[in-house]
């Protein structure tokens, strides 16, 4: 066998192995989507079939939408994720600007105060935060659902790193021309760092969209549930209605997959770069 042929067979075997592994990894998702097209009878039969009888059977989706306020859940999630991202990004931008362009007393200390929030896992603070939020009468409100995620230390850090690449002389020159700091931020700093901003926004949005534990804690009314919480409460349509549950889960996966496909590059970049500084 020549060296080239040997390499080609090695390549082929690696590709085939990778594809098989890939199929195993993707299997649960495919199973969920196929299951959404199955009827109750198909779920009851043994042996369980992998493929549904027909892909034209959309009754499950209709029934799932009828029986559960799925669209309302998605709307709630959208509001919470947008509000949380907007506030978190605003706070992070302001703080990052201050850390990047000003010199002041206690700068290092305050920087550490913000960064150290990453060391305290939110899950361990949940119960006390629940008490605070309930005392503020924010249970079952959109604000209550995202108020604990307003501090984005990693976002702030990434933004500061990015802002530091903008020369300070530029700001001094702008100030001599009578340009205020906020205006400089708005018309120079933000446009220059648009790629990073976009990446961080996407990352933060997905983060909040996927949140489960906290929204579960602070919502009691059904119409305020987010989609991640709502989807696990589908036992309301009957514990054995697997076809309906899978149809609803498939519907909730659609926006997530949409985001994943459109913004894949951004997500990957944001996650890896965000991770490596941590």
């Amino acid at each position, binding site marked *: 066998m020549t060296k080239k042929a040997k390499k080609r067979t090695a390549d082929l075997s690696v590709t085939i192995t990778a594809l098989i592994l890939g199929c195993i990894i993707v299997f649960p998702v495919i199973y969920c989507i196929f299951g959404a097209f199955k009827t109750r009878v198909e779920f009851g039969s043994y042996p369980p079939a992998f493929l549904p009888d027909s892909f034209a059977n959309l009754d499950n989706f209709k029934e799932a939408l009828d029986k559960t306020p799925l669209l309302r859940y998605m709307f709630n999630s959208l509001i919470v994720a947008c509000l949380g991202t907007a506030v978190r990004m605003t706070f992070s931008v302001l703080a990052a600007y201050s850390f990047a362009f000003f010199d002041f007393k206690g700068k290092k200390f305050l920087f550490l105060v913000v960064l150290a929030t990453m060391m305290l896992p939110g899950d361990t603070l949940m*119960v006390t935060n629940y008490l605070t939020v309930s005392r503020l009468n924010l249970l079952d409100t959109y604000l209550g659902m995202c108020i604990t995620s307003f501090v984005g230390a990693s976002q702030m850090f990434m933004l500061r790193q990015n802002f530091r690449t903008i020369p300070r002389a530029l700001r001094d020159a702008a100030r001599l021309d009578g340009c205020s700091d906020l205006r400089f931020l708005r018309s120079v700093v933000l446009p220059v760092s648009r790629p990073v901003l976009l990446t961080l926004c996407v990352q933060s949005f997905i983060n909040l969209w996927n949140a489960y*534990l906290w929204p579960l804690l602070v919502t009691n009314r059904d119409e305020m549930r987010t989609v991640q919480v709502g*989807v696990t409460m589908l036992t309301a349509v009957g514990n054995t209605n*697997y076809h309906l549950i899978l149809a609803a889960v498939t519907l909730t996966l659609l926006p997530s997959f949409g985001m994943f496909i459109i913004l894949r590059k951004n997500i990957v970049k944001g996650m890896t770069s965000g991770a490596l500084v941590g």
Partner: protein
Amino acid sequence: MTLQKKNLRRQNGRAVQRAIRRRRQIKPYLYLVPIIFFAIAFVYYPFGKTFLYSFCTVNAKGQITGFAGWENFAYLFQHRNFKIALLNTLKLTAMFVPLNLCVSLGLALLCNQKRRLSGVYETMFTLPMAVPMSAAAMIFKILFNPTVGYINYFLGIQLGWFEDRKVAMYGILILCLWMGMAFDFLLFLSALRAVPDQLLEAASLDGAGFFTKLFRIRIPMIMPTALYVICTNMVLSMMTSGPVMIITEGGPSRATTTLIYMMYTSGYQSSDYSLAACISIVTFLLTFGMTALALVFDSRRTCYE
């Protein structure tokens, strides 16, 4: 203009300048007010309060009624459920961290070289990242169901994955691996691709085989990434609660009760806030200790740049 007026104007000018300077001094802090305020209100204050609660008796409304000293902790360490939850969590972490490391590193090594279809299988490997935890838990709940699920039929076994006391934790482990793998795979992939080619080529010329190159060059070069993955995964698996909450609710007979799940049940459902605070402090200290240990271990290692 008289001298007096001139002096007055000069004084005014100084006052204005001073005001401007003061404003300039305050400004940096003004930009920081929002983030610091929320950091204190929702991170440091609750942490301090949790600490306080763990040493006090607290009523069902969350008000402190008295000082308890170490009694809460003594009560907690005697608690039967706590021992079970602690062991379960440590067991899960001990299995999850190395397994996840092996699987994600293995997949990354497989994909390291770019091939014709690498785009396809790389996307397949990263797809679980797009699935939110709750959706994944619901899918696995049905997929591993002993009667209608596909896994038992496919493997030809009869196993109540989430109903059997002995295997329930492994079911949770599989779900956690499936969810956590994709991200770490990406981290390893980008780290592996950043290993300089000339090093590997030089080693090849010296007659190094695949495994020599792997253990002598690639793995030492990606150690920083590996350390990051290990640390985040330790924190992640110590905090496991979502899948447990959705699929097993801590059961069967407490076999999947984790620390955070126990904290949730005792704090949120039974309103025993001091017990919940104790669990939270113990979990935090354990996680913190593990991460610190990993970092100390790392600092003894030689650095390759």
